[in-house]
């Protein structure tokens, strides 16, 4: 590790808020990755004798339901675990898609000629000038509720901010002495882009992506809650919450627990993003 990176790591590790964020997000990721190990049941195992049982309920056979059961007698904890799998992978895929397109277009806007820059940035402006939920609703109304549309919606939500961030950093870095020197020494455009510019673009990019992950988890959950995202029986935190809603007065836990899972994951991403921002660049403000 070189000097500056170890300074960043130390600043990050000493920040309790960042560490809380890292732990929350890592825990959510681990639960999602090892779902079959962590969950006692599958997400659709029903048990008519154990319907709407409260948290910590013990079945006659001695089986403990840590977070209770839902109207179909399914273990809420198991469903949250498998819901983590769905929600986190959909959000991550949307982020990769939107981030990838955004980084590509941002680099293009920063490097290529003026008209490409103007075109891409105007498109980003229009995108950002449009409420994301409204865009999602329009697209889903037209294309129906399917995974591909959902991913497209999430990618649309995040490409513009990535493109803007990357372009901004490229413009800043392009005229820096080290880059000018590399260019003067005859470095080609690819060497310049990957060796000189990308490392400098990386810091703000990581900060933006982390914050976007939280936003995408929220957007997916919201759409699934509205019935426009992941469809049952496939579990997502949003559709679990919506299914538990009619039973709220008799079984508060069915709708409450998935909401806590959303809170933990989004809080994790947001705190981690804040911590990374403080560690990577104290001057950077979002």
């Amino acid at each position, binding site marked *: 590790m070189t000097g500056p990176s170890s300074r960043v790591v130390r600043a990050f590790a000493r920040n309790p808020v960042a560490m809380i964020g890292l732990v929350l997000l890592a825990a959510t990721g681990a639960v999602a990755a090892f779902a079959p190990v962590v969950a006692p049941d599958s997400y659709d195992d029903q048990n008519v004798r154990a319907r709407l049982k409260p948290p910590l309920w013990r079945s006659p056979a001695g089986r403990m339901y840590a977070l209770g059961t839902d109207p179909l007698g399914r273990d809420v904890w198991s469903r949250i675990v498998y819901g983590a799998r769905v929600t986190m992978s959909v959000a991550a895929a949307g982020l990769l898609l939107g981030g990838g397109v955004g980084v590509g277009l941002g680099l293009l806007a920063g490097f290529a000629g003026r008209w490409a820059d103007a075109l891409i940035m105007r498109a980003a*402006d229009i995108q950002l000038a449009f409420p994301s939920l409204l865009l999602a609703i*329009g697209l889903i109304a037209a294309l129906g509720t399917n995974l591909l549309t959902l991913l497209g919606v999430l990618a649309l939500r995040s490409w513009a901010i990535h493109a803007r961030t990357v372009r901004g950093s490229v413009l800043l870095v392009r005229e820096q002495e080290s880059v000018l020197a590399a260019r003067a020494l005859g470095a080609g455009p690819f060497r310049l882009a990957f060796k000189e510019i990308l490392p400098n673009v990386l810091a703000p990019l990581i900060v933006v992506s982390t914050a976007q992950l939280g936003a995408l988890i929220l957007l997916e959950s919201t759409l699934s809650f509205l019935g426009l995202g992941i469809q049952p029986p496939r579990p997502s935190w949003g559709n679990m919450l919506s299914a538990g809603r009619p039973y709220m007065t008799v079984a508060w836990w069915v709708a409450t627990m998935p909401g806590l899972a959303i809170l933990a994951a989004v809080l994790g991403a947001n705190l981690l993003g804040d911590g990374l921002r403080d560690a990577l660049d104290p001057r950077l403000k979002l």
Partner: protein
Amino acid sequence: MGVSGLAIPPGLRYVLGRIAQLVPTLVGVTLFAFIVIRLSGDPTSVLLPADASETEREAFRRAYGLDRPILEQYVRYVGRLLHGDFGVSLFQGEPALRLVLDRLAITVQLAGTAIGLVMLVGVPIGILAAVRRGTIIDHITLSLVALGQSVATFWLGLMLILVFAVAWRLVPPSGYGTAAQIILPAFTLAAYYLAVAARLTRSGMLEVMAQDYIRTARAKGLSEWLTVFRHALRNAFIPILTVLGIQIGELLAGSVVTETVFAWPGVGTLVLDAILRRDYPLVQAVIVVLAVIYAVINLAVDLLYAWVDPRVRYQ
């Protein structure tokens, strides 16, 4: 003055330039609404009731020029929008624009109350946290800000119903009409923006309070609160207002979720019902109306900002 001068003052030039920026945005919005209907297949199958006969479909195609080139169709569509013709709701048989505007009035009540909360609660909390920086008040504020920015709106709404309407019976759980019924949805809708407002106000105040003239004000013996109100607040307020202004448009669109949770009969429940019934003209109308409002609010905020802070106009 040269030929290019044309004696337009820079202030006016800024205003005109900013208004001109509205054009690509509006083109983008209408293009989106236009394409969305075509993405879903044959427009007559989505714009007419399912039981329409083939002759009806043919008549519709001719009346709306669906047999013409696509660009001409788009221009005609925009032309109809400009004349206030947003199509007819498939299920209610009424002009879509009128349905949207009726419901919009109800949404604006909710959004207006939420914005009031943001200004009257979020901003003062941010000031307090900045002045009492590093104290327990500041820490609690920062924790609430982090939670407020991460919580799912619909979940917060349900939890508020559970506690304040079901358990304590202080307010009705949902519905529209009485003053008590607006409290929970307004707070739910405002929560995220309360957090944003408190955070922005706090950081804005801290930045301003580190400036030289604040130190001068303190040095000449002004009390802490007088310094805050007479000198710091005024300078911190402009950027706060700008960001909040932009958020107001998001808040209108975000009311879809809050309205669903509280059965608030605004434009949000309207559009969701419209999607479930595949009432495309109505969905289209909601999208265009809300997006136009959003763009106009952003424009107004920018112009207001430039008016308050003249440096913007010359950039």
